[in-house]
């Protein structure tokens, strides 16, 4: 283990999605003979920039960063670059090109479209629905929400009854779903920005005994969600190939450290998302891996 340190900074280790991201990156790094140091900023740009600083102090060879905020993280990245440490962005992009050596992100827009189409199809393109959104401070929330809209706007008979922000959180998803069910008992579908909120909504629907006639769609492809798909409670979820790009990121970093270049044609690399429905659910072998 003498090839130096790779600092891996992910969003929130207490969320299966980012945990997979962190652990896979860590494993890959160690397989390649680096020390790996995983920390999580829980979406706080200040914590993030502190962790970047400590990475600099630690003289990391490279930083694998899942940015806390598309705009807010730029400063931290720049500081790392100025300190001569290559930064490789994963999962979510930053709104500035030419800083990071590479940005490996799942194609949220494509994923959202994928999900929306599946969902609309299962709804036969009609009925009123509710949307659960993530925090606007996270621009994936916006991307996905827009992705949904662009697709769903093509279905005139689909009407958005209500939408609310549930901060990616299951408890909030449930509580808000229950309340919105009051004001909109006639909905036929719920489309959610991520799996946690979708699972919360499912609980609410179960409690009201509405789960059978309401179609819920998620996003992320987290193990919990996949179980729900398997049991038929969740119509589908969109798998982000986090395992894949987490691994690639480290490999590219390694390549860059050795050769001085990433070997990529462009900085931004989009990874397409996959749909997980009951049909292909069994090929979901390990967390966030679809064989």
């Amino acid at each position: 283990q003498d090839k130096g340190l790779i600092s891996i900074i992910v969003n929130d280790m207490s969320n299966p999605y980012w945990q997979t991201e962190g652990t896979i990156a860590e494993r890959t790094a160690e397989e390649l003979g680096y020390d790996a140091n995983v920390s999580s900023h829980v979406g706080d740009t200040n914590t993030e920039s502190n962790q970047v600083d400590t990475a600099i102090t630690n003289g990391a060879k490279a930083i694998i960063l899942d940015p806390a905020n598309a705009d807010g993280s730029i400063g931290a990245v720049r500081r790392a670059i100025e300190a001569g440490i290559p930064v490789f962005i994963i999962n979510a992009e930053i709104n500035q090109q030419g800083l990071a050596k590479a940005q490996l992100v799942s194609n949220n827009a494509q994923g959202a479209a994928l999900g929306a189409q599946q969902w609309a199809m299962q709804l036969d393109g009609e009925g009123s629905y509710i949307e659960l959104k993530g925090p606007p401070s996270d621009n994936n929330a916006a991307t996905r929400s827009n992705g949904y809209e662009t697709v769903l706007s093509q279905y005139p008979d689909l009407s958005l009854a209500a939408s609310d922000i549930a901060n990616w959180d299951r408890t909030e998803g449930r509580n808000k779903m229950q309340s919105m069910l009051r004001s909109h008992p006639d909905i036929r579908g719920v489309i959610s920005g991520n799996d946690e909120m979708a699972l919360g909504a499912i609980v609410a629907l179960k409690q009201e005994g509405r789960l059978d006639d309401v179609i819920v769609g998620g996003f992320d492809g987290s193990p919990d969600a996949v179980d729900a798909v398997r049991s038929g409670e969740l119509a589908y979820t969109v798998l982000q190939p986090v395992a894949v790009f987490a691994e690639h990121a480290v490999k590219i970093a390694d390549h860059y450290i050795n050769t001085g270049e990433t070997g990529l044609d462009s900085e931004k690399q989009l990874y397409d998302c996959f749909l997980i429905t009951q049909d292909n659910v069994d090929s979901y072998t390990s967390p966030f891996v679809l064989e």
Partner: protein
Amino acid sequence: MSHHNNNALQVEKGSIDIVKILLEGRAFFALIVIIIVFSILSPVYFSTGNFLTMSSHVAVFGLLGIGMLFVILTGGIDLSVGSTLALCGVFAGMLLEGVEIEAFNLAFFPSVWVVVVLTCLLGGLVGAINGVLVAYFKVPAFVATLGMLYVARGAALLLTDGLTFNSLSGDPTLGNTGFEWLGFNKLFGIPVGVLILFCAAVICMLALSRTPFGRWIYSTGGNARAAELSGVPVNRVKLSVYIISGVCAALAGIVLASQLTSAGPTAGTTYELTAIAAVVIGGASLMGGRGTVRNTLLGAFVIGFLADGLVIIGVSAYWQMVFTGSVIVFAVMLNNVQYSAKHKSSQQAEKTTESKREGSRASAT
């Protein structure tokens, strides 16, 4: 002020004049206003079904609030309830998924009731640590429980490695089913969670108004030195209120987990603030010695019914925050108004104040 005691007395005299009791509740007006406003703004708000749903949301905060009340009555504060809730939640989840003991490589699946008991014990233990720090090591309550806020959360995350337990339904063959029943089913048309809240409330109400222990709590919060000289075991009282708060947090954790049919280590973040808000809206004094279970419940309902109401009428998430904040402040200002309205009590208040200030200077020696 004296007002409070009157309430207490009402209860003791076993007066069942509900209206009177409610009217005496500090937070009552705020609650009424909220219900009226939202019933006007939304046709669906005013319905049994909705009230039941909202109540089941309130259950969690209510339980935390009651525990918090005990601590606040003694002049302390417990910032760790949110984390304790999470820790106990995942602990329960872990037990339900079964514990392997490698040594004898046998797995054992405690039945739901065992789980509930063990979880409450854990909650009590966490509380006991707070209590010992505060009562015996004289660490300021704010600090001790602030530390526990981090420690308990960290423990919860370590316990689950950050993951969420989903399979809480148990397995008939293992005889540990029935957990979801807690959060899901209804008895006599009332969500179990709400029933648990009310049982807890009634027990605590009795404990506070009808037992020596209750009297000890109020006197400890009122004037610890005097209480001690009157033979009140002040330190033990302090210790036990934190234990109670811990157990309530555990119960809240169980209810929440069963309602969500899953237990995650990040549940209950910042709930401590909501719980404290409930207690204070209920007219309790953060300096200790004043406050009742009933008013704390009203406080919890104010917060819960407001939050849900805002969602129902579709107010944006941001405005929800603004409203919540303002209501907390206004509800408490309302109390002040009530006080000064009640000439007698307010005036006595002043005088008590007077004497207390004398007290304070005296003890400055």
